[in-house]
């Protein structure tokens, strides 16, 4: 039974919560995922993601520059898959077009910025969000701030090794994995509609 000293749960956790890594949370290996600080299989995590997204009041996707811009074919393919996933979930999409310190202020209705992700979350009353296509450093900074100051449930679909500061993270996510997640959500949606 895996011991979890630091369950990574939705906040608001406090003024300046510690990073999950500094509390001993370790990133998953290939084929695995993290759910609230615990290592699980990718499949199990996808089920939980489906449940969280479909139960959310205001699920929102935050696509980052790596898929917002058509800089190579993989990015375009992944972007397409993410758009479809968001549509199946019935989620809003608010972009993270860049990471710069925005001046004078961000327009929280139309963007999210890693220096103030809490503003977008609060003002739009987002209770569950998905990070995808964001460079890992900025995703981590944003996820920590969100956990500190909001009660938003965060899900990270990471193209590299994952994000322990999110409540749920998958790793090695390319277009194919996004599509698998979409299928899982479609299935759970049907099951729910059938009253199963």
């Amino acid at each position: 039974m895996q011991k979890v000293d630091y369950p990574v749960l939705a906040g608001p956790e406090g003024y300046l919560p510690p990073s999950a890594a500094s509390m001993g949370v370790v990133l998953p290996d290939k084929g695995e995922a993290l759910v609230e600080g615990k290592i699980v299989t990718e499949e199990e995590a996808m089920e939980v993601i489906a449940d969280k997204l479909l139960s959310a009041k205001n699920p929102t996707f935050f696509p980052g520059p790596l898929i917002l811009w058509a800089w190579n074919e993989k990015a375009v393919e992944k972007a397409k898959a993410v758009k479809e996933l968001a549509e199946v979930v019935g989620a809003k999409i608010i972009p993270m077009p860049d990471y710069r310190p925005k001046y004078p202020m961000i327009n929280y209705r139309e963007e999210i910025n890693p220096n103030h992700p809490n503003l977008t979350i609060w003002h739009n009353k987002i209770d569950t969000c998905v990070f995808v296509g964001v460079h890992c450093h900025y995703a981590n900074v944003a996820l920590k701030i969100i956990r500190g100051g909001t009660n938003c449930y965060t899900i990270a679909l990471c193209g590299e090794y994952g994000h322990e500061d999110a409540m749920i993270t998958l790793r090695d996510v390319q277009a194919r994995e996004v599509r698998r997640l979409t299928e899982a959500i479609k299935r759970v949606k049907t099951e729910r509609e059938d009253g199963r």
Partner: protein
Amino acid sequence: MTEGKVVEQKIVEPEYLFFEAKREPRFITGSEAVREAIKRANVDLAISYPITPQSESMHLVGYIYAQGYLKDYYRGEDELGVMSAVAGASMGGVRVFTATGGPGTLRAFEMFPTWAGARLPIVCAFFCRGINSPLTIQPDTIEIGFMLDTGMLIFHVETAQDLFDMLLKAFIIAEEPDVHLPIGVFADGFFITHTRELVEIPPEDIKLPPYDPYKSPMPVMDMETPPVRQMRDPFVMKSNFISYAAHASWQQEVRAAGERARKHINKYLGGLLETENEDADILIIASGTAVSQSREAIIRANREGISVGLVKVKVLRPFPCQEIKTITRKAKVIIIPEFNIIGWLAREVSSVIEDNSRVVGAPRVFGGMTMPPELILDEIKKQRFLLANK
């Protein structure tokens, strides 16, 4: 000195180069071990600046550049300039290498937390020597004490073999996307750089895979990857007028990256430390060449029927807190010999173990003084006597 043309090299998986390739023993100095490591490291650019006892290593890197093993190399104007240029090159997406030591480390110091904060996977060798005033070119590890909290990862080598292996492995660990931090590979000056030992080296016709800048957790500065409206690194405090939480979270992320390195260090280095006879009542914890001297002292102690354990700390950042806490549970006394006046290793160990009154920060020598095994043996015997008469 530049005899021999470049050998056609095949790219191999890191695991093959580290663990599987057949090795031949070569009787070489630490400086030459640096040359052999960089030759196989697929480094794009190296920048140098003279300071004893590091210069020879970088001369040799220059010679292999002239042969064709590196794409570019030059001598910079001072250590701050060199470390800054290395940062610029890393942001441009190439694999870089440089070295320094002692006063050079301090001259460049502002760049070390800057590298870490900027998530630059730079590998820098540090050949430890004393810090002014007064000046000494001789071995002294005081600079490690200053470097411990820069956010860089810190490896400390015991031998030229360690230096060869740790340099190569540092590139791979540093460049992992969840780490992506600079690594300082520290070696005691002269003891490692200028003495010869047998070093097992794999063939020279293999090299590490190249650096992939598109796996970086931050965009590389080459106008080939989004977002274009990107500065590395801006005044985040100015976002929305004030954003101190972003700055704090950024700092936390840098430290988190250091924690993530543990997994990769365990994989490639086989652990952050190594132990022998760890259940003994008397335990020595040491790093660098103090480990070698301790080994010799332990052999002599054993001859006199005294059982002494040894913990060789290979990685100082991230610090093996849990490992040391567990290993020291049974020990009755913990002897920590060091080549510096601060006693930074004793301080690190004392801060993580239960009952640190067991820690003996001795023997300590510095300024270039050697640490004869007799000194350590005397301490072992003294502690044994004290234990027996408690």
